[in-house]
């Protein structure tokens, strides 16, 4: 039982029960949790991301696939922890101080989780100090800052400055995103990258951690 194409198809088409069933079957056949994750679930989510970027999938299809993937992950997670399999990287995400919009941030979190990252969701209206605290505590590799409003974009720079002033800037990569945010703005404030949507943010996070 080496062919993960059926499992991938079930994830991509959002078939939650079938994903759980097929995942269990792979485990029964002797596959390790990591093999199933790397061979079936994560590549499936990469295809979902590609389809989203290509305009073939929209948010409903992406979310349905993510929920189906979670049905498999729920089964694998205890086994992955048992065998000390590390996530691709740890990412702290949050909406910056003064901003409580969370749709974009949540989509990024869902896509990152589905792509093998451990995500620590700091929530909304997150102060620069809180981002630093969470990144430090968790040993995060990447910090993702979200803002929907131009009025809260300066809080992204404040957060980057906080990492600088705490002497932690070199320990994390910082990516930013949100409706009014641009690549140029990311460069201006010293962020390491800009994600234009949830799928794009996954590719960016991977490139930032050398994945």
């Amino acid at each position, binding site marked *: 039982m080496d062919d993960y194409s059926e499992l991938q198809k079930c994830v991509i088409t959002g078939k939650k029960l079938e994903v759980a069933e097929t995942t269990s079957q792979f485990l029964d056949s002797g596959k390790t949790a990591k093999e199933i994750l790397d061979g079936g679930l994560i590549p499936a989510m990469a295809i979902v991301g590609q389809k989203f970027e290509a305009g073939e999938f*929209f948010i409903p299809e992406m*979310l349905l696939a993510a929920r189906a993937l979670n049905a498999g992950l729920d089964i694998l997670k205890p086994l992955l922890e048992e065998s000390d399999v590390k996530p691709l990287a740890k990412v702290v995400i949050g909406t910056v101080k003064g901003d409580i919009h969370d749709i974009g941030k949540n989509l990024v979190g869902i896509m990152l989780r589905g792509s093998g990252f451990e995500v620590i969701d700091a929530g909304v209206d997150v102060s620069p100090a809180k981002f630093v605290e969470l990144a430090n505590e968790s040993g995060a590799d990447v910090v993702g800052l979200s803002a929907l*409003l131009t*009025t809260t974009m300066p809080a992204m720079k404040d957060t980057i400055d906080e990492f600088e002033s705490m002497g932690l800037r070199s320990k994390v990569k910082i990516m930013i995103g949100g409706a009014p945010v641009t690549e140029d*703005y990311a460069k201006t404030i010293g962020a390491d990258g800009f994600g234009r949507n949830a799928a794009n943010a996954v590719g960016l996070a991977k490139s930032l951690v050398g994945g």
Partner: protein
Amino acid sequence: MTIEENYYRAIEFNYPKWIPVSASIMPATWSKYREAMEEVVLEYPFIFGDFEKGSRDFDEFEGTYQEGVQTDAWGCVWKNVAPGLDGVVVGNPLPNREDVHSFEPPKEHAGLPHGFMFMRLYYLRGFEELMIDFAEEPPELQILIDKVLSYNLQEIEVFLETKPRIIILGDDLGNQDWLPIHPDKWNKYLKPCYARMFAKCRQAGTLVYLHSDGHILEIIDSLIDCGLDVLNPQVGANGLDNLARVAKGKVAINLDLDRQNFPFWTPEQIDAHIHEAVEKLSLPEGGLLLFAEFEPDVPLANIKAICESLEKYRNYA
């Protein structure tokens, strides 16, 4: 010709004398600039209309512009941490699909606030749950849509009793650079709603105006089919060339100038932006209006520059 007559001439492609220009000032912006903002408003009557000095309470924040948490007539919980700016729905009354069956829209007249149809669906269900509904297409999706639509049609009927010349509606249908749902699903589930609401207005002789934030290019044709007279789309999310291709001459465009760049641009860049907009979208017979929204992070110098350029290009020919 009065400003009002000219406005309707532009909307109806009936050779306006000038391009109608207008602007909205967020309450937080009033609060920040106060008398200086008032001076700007008084200086540009073509943009702001009649305004009496001293008539604005600079610190007045109504409804969801107020800081704190409040629940609207639908049971949606709003939160605002930035007084004078828009609040956000943080509590959804229908988190479970089965809740839809027993749900009843407000019995009182709660109007047709911004987010009256598509946004109301996710205010009620939560964004992710609504998106899953659109993916799985359970009967509850159509049931909820029908309930919201039914309320809206009743509200429109009440509004039309005063025989208004135009109805102004707002519903953000797009994300920054794409639609949240596939255009086919939009056409299947939402187009019939807008078609029924707009038809009711048109039958009463009332023009229909719709504001939408976000990228909506793929559904503009559908909105026109529904009977839309004036569309208020964002430049940044749609692009001028795309709007010219999809909407110019087919529906009046009240162009929402690129407010996502107002805080960052120089006055020269602002002028070039407005110049480009009128060059690409204006027609001698009309169909173009220009609109700017001022958030509190826009420097006063840029607000003045926007007004100056609007004043300059409204007579563009």
